[in-house]
């Protein structure tokens, strides 16, 4: 099996690479590339994302044909794709970080700033928080409800159709932290930095 981590200059992806390689061992071939052909020929994709929504979308659009290649992979051919953090947020229609920016538009919804309730909640939401599993999800298989995952973000994905939500976390309000829609998976938390539980999410994705 060929699994590709999409390298589109979206910030620091070393930890994503290390963790996927750790779980994959010799069983799965992990590639890191922005080569459109290699992406199209992969069996699974990981779309990481760090920094702002706008900077990630801009970086993605800077690579000619990448947007279409991802669409062909995930929407037309319906092959498994995992978005992490801003990678997940970009599934939405629009984001409001820095300025209003169009997302990939794969899952209806918007990306808005977490309500800090007049300073009651510090932003970014940094650290370990419990996830509340609200619906069965393939990538959360064998993960206990209330497990801790590592978060670092100030914006949240608010999907139009709540049925895609598989887990939430409590910070100011119930923040969407895991989604599944057919072959599309996304986590707001960083599985690559969430210790053994996070590695389990990665394993689940590789085992799909």
């Amino acid at each position, binding site marked *: 099996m060929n699994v590709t981590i999409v390298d589109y200059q979206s910030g620091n992806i070393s930890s994503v690479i290390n963790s996927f390689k750790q779980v994959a061992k010799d069983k799965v071939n992990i590639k890191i590339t922005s080569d459109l052909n290699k992406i199209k020929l992969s069996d699974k994709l990981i779309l990481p994302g760090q920094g702002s929504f706008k900077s990630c979308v801009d970086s993605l659009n800077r690579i000619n044909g990448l947007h279409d290649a991802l669409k062909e992979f995930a929407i037309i051919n319906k092959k498994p794709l995992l978005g992490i953090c801003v990678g997940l947020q970009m599934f939405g229609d629009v984001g409001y970080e820095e300025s209003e920016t169009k997302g990939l538009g794969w899952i209806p919804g918007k990306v808005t700033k977490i309500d800090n309730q007049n300073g009651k909640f510090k932003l970014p939401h*940094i650290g370990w*928080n419990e996830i509340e599993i609200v619906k069965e999800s393939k990538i959360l298989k064998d993960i206990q409800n209330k497990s801790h995952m590592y978060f670092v973000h100030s914006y949240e994905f608010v999907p139009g159709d709540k049925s895609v939500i598989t887990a939430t976390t409590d910070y100011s309000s119930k923040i969407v932290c895991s989604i599944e829609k057919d072959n599309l998976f996304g986590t707001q938390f960083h599985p690559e930095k969430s210790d053994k539980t996070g590695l389990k999410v990665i394993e689940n994705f590789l085992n799909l």
Partner: protein
Amino acid sequence: MLKNRIIPCLDVKNGRVVKGINFVELKDAGDPVEQAKIYSNGGADEICFLDITASNENRETIINIVKKTAKNCFVPLTVGGGIRTIKNITDLLLAGADKVSINTAAVNDINLVVDASKKFGSQCIVVAIDAKNISKNKWEVFTHGGRNKTGIDVVEFSKKVEKAGAGEILLTSMDRDGTKSGYDIELLKMVTKNTNIPVIASGGVGTLDHLYDGITTGGASAVLAASIFHYGEHSIKDAKEYLNSKKVPVRL
């Protein structure tokens, strides 16, 4: 609920840990890679390396350590010490660091914080502030590992780095550092009340109660400590169980 983080900090000099951990299973007491692994397996919420190597030529050394550590460590890794340029940050992140901590360079040129947080995202930019008490409720920023005074007020500077895009503040009390008499709670209170980004308390931990005070009274989101963990007085697990028994939310 978001948990308060416990962060062991390892001082690294010329590729070796200056203060060692007193663990029996440790094969090499001075190897930062192995120590980080032990902390990570022991439940540390993050790991922090502070490179106190004086010379610039040694940057490759810390980068190699980060590379090796990141391969086996699946909790966030922060690296600080001697970071002056975007290139320094890029090198560390490519090696596998998740965050960098900027100290002197942030005072010299706040634009480094602005540029770095734009380029890499606020989530990986920590500004480390070394604070010294100068009069009642007044603290001054010091740089160059505490050697140079700047005349800059700590609270004003904290607001400035928040505005510049820092994701967190690592606040060290120079008065308390190494004394084991507890964090400077007044300093912590002052900074946590005047900023809206997470503050990591540092400097002075001698007992587990000090961690408790830093979080509950000081308002810190995370607590950093070195010697109480290194010398085996307490494990990360002890610290977490203690805090949990006193109703402080931690990841057990």
